[in-house]
């Protein structure tokens, strides 16, 4: 019983709202990620769960228990910070053992055994007698994780734990964290500004913006069916096109013609009722460069090409609008080209909402 629920939580700092009416629910054993740009309120949400911020309105429940007024030390949550906050005046072992001064380790083991077990769990068994400063960033990160887990917390909170590390190490460690979480089955809330990391690691993702939750869902849903324009732009590369509804049955949209261009009418899977204007999102990898037989074809010109190794990132111009296309080929495209699109790859932003 260690799910986390936030109900209509608002937090105000000096008259500036940091969280506006946040509601979300993390189920037992779930890996839940809060993602958004800096200042969106994701860290404040985490700190509210940990008990470092007090909600001005709303309630927080951990394991079905309302934790209003419960100080951080009594919440039984483990937290890992971006800079790890390992106590520099204690050895690695002493750091991991710190929480055991106040809470008994789970299971029938002594404190010393518990510390050893956790150091083994994070592959740092040899490092117990070192000082935190002697360790690399990645090693410190593992120790911080071991320290947070040592007292057997109900919930694990991770506040941008990887963002101080270089790109390669980050990708390796996020697998370590995910595997560890799966092994322990611990309810985890993870905060990051890196949307790719959020998609890679999570069971479910909440995209936050300006103190609000924009969308909650599994990574695939967030990516493929963005609920808002913000989510569509923030998560992954994307092409957003404004369109005017031509008819609802069949669902047809005229992609807007800028600069008095003629535009083109396309058929999509579904349209929200009663809308006259819609935003459509088409992922760069869903546009096929040179496919002249696709249901939807656009005649465009190549403007800039970036070589990424496995693919090219092609910036095209179609009727005054720029489009981003991913192109897997041996040679870079140039000049006039045709872009092919399938209707099922065209998502109407916010399409599922009435």
């Amino acid at each position, binding site marked *: 019983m260690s799910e986390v629920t936030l109900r209509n939580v608002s937090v105000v700092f000096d008259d500036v709202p940091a969280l506006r009416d946040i509601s979300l629910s993390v189920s037992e054993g779930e890996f839940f990620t809060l993602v958004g740009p800096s200042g969106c309120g994701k860290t404040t949400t985490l*700190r509210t769960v*940990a*008990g*470092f911020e007090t909600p001005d309105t709303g309630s927080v429940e951990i394991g079905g228990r309302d934790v209003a007024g419960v*100080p*951080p*030390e*009594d*919440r039984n*949550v*483990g*937290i890992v*910070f971006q*800079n790890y*906050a390992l*106590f*520099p*005046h204690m050895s690695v072992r002493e750091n991991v053992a*710190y*929480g055991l*001064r*106040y*809470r008994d380790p789970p299971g029938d083991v002594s404190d010393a055994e518990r510390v050893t077990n956790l150091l083994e769990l994070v592959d740092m068994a040899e490092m117990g007698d070192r000082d935190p400063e002697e360790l690399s960033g990645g090693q410190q990160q593992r120790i911080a994780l071991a*320290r*947070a887990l*040592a*007292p057997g917390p109900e919930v694990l*909170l991770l506040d941008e734990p990887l963002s101080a590390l270089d790109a390669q190490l980050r990708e390796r460690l996020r697998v370590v964290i995910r595997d560890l979480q799966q092994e322990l089955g611990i309810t985890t809330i993870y905060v990051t500004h890196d949307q790719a990391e959020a998609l890679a690691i999570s069971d479910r993702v909440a995209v936050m913006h300006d103190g609000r939750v924009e969308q909650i869902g599994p990574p695939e849903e967030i990516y493929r069916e963005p609920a808002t324009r913000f989510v569509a732009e923030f998560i992954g590369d994307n092409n957003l096109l404004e369109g005017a509804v031509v008819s609802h049955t069949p669902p047809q949209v005229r992609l807007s013609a800028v600069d008095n261009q003629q535009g083109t009418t396309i058929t999509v899977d579904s349209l929200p009722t009663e809308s006259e204007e819609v935003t459509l999102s088409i992922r760069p990898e869903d546009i096929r460069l040179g496919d002249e037989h696709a249901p939807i074809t656009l005649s465009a010109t190549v403007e800039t090409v970036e070589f990424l190794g496995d693919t090219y990132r092609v910036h095209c111009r179609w009727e005054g609008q720029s489009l981003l296309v991913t192109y897997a080929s041996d040679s870079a495209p140039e000049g006039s080209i045709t872009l092919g699109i399938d209707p099922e790859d065209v998502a109407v932003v916010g399409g599922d909402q009435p």
Partner: protein
Amino acid sequence: MSRWAERAALPAAVVATIATLSVVFYYPVGSVFVEAVLESGRLTADPLLDILSDPFYTGVAHHLFVDPLGIPAGVLDWITSGFPSVALGRFGFTAYQAALSTVASVALGLPGAYVLARYDFRGRRMLKSLTIVPFVLPSIMVAVGFLAMFGRAGLLNDLLGSVGLGPIELLFTLKIIVLAHAFYNAPLVTRLVTTAWESVDRRQVESARAMGASPLAAFRDVVLPAILPSLLTAALLTFVFTFMSFPIVLALGGLRHATVEVWIYARVQALDLGEAATLATLETVLSLVLTYLYLRYEARQRSTSGAGQSLLRKPLTIGWQTLRSPTRLAIFAYGIVAAVVFVGPLLSLLIESVTAPDGSFTTAYYEFLFAQQAASAVGTTKPLPAIVNSIVYGLGTLALAVPMGIVVAMLAVRGGRGSRLAEALLTAPLAVSGIIVGLGLLQTMVFGTVLFGYRLTAAGPIAIIFAHAAAAYPFVTRNVAPALGGLDSRYRDAARSLGATRLRALLEIELPLIGAAVLAGAAFAFAISVGEFDSTVLLAEGVDSYTMPVALERYVNNRSLGPNLGPATAMGTVLLFVTGLSFVVIDRLGGRWEP
């Protein structure tokens, strides 16, 4: 300790700190003010007006309160009779000597800032950290050093006599007061201006030069605007400090050159507590106004980022060519003057403490200090108890001031209303002189306060430790608050989510990590206690709770207690040793004191 008790401990500590400050500072000081405006239970301005309209106190300005309408005619008379010198009165004299002292401190301190900021030489950093020393040197000890240097039988006259000159008489003159004040405050000027000068970004000067400014123009347009505010800050502070200066004026000026502060002391000794309280109130109003002006000015200054590179320093010595550089020769001349003023008195103190009247080496004064004086009459000031008392009070002060300082530092770094309260708590002791705290404690604690029908009194030692703690805790806070504020708050958060209460996180994580700052603050507090004179001299009156500085003053003023200045210089040397040790601790631990 149960978790409940741990949770209650910190709020309780805040309440206890505020309560302690109320008992040892606000209530006593407040009672002095009340005494000044209450006459047999009625509110009255008569005592205040009596003083303001007394030419003895306010000099020519007393006409303002006696006959304000006659002033234009009076000024006209003064002009037509050719500007005769005017009577200043005690208040006027106090401001006059403070102004002179400020000018002297700036004149002595500014070249030092120039040398430290613009030249490189061996011992530069050491010299810069030595500028903090005056804050830990007991002023009565410095006064004894000045006596040993400039007194009739002092080192200077001995030296002059050996070449057939002198003797010169500086004692009980305004000159020596101003010089001693410069000893104290010139290093403050040097310190503040050096810091500002070093924070001038080299690239700004280089940009100005690249755009065609001459070195002088670049100095005027870039450097001067950066250092002028710090110079004004230092000058204002010097004025406030010297306006309230007490032991130096008492020991070196005597009653003839008595400032308001000394006169308050004289009134207390004459048991005229009413007039003392009235004078104290007027003095505090003035110093509060000055402190307010200082804080207003200080708040307007934008803090320099310090991110830039400071100006390149020139080498001070450049081989034999040093002798052909006028600037460098002037610097060496300045160095000699500075050595005479700063090193001279302390060196004289050491030399006189081992020199017999006939000029031979002697250890008699030190033997006198550590011998048990069984034969002394009652009330005689014995040296050994003074040394023991000083150390005991110093430790007592630590026990009170360190926790208080830490609690106020916690309030200060929390931000919001708490930090404004902490700021107010901290600056109040700056504006109220020790003699007024002493007077207040004498009235409220030693004589006792009636509460619910019981007369509560505290013996001398307790009152002294309280007074010392009130004077010392801001130094703890000034050291602890920046360190605590600079500490990543996530250490605390991590400890708390691991199960530690706020108190445990403070004791087990935060304080160990800022241990150096706590120790530096404690060393400051100890030095302040050991050197405190102003309030101690009042509270130790007629009891056996005198301290080293108080004994020192008694030896100076009453030669019947000892053969000559010898015992005073020997005790001064012990004081110098104790406070010097505190300085080493403070310096090693990177202690700071920004007023």
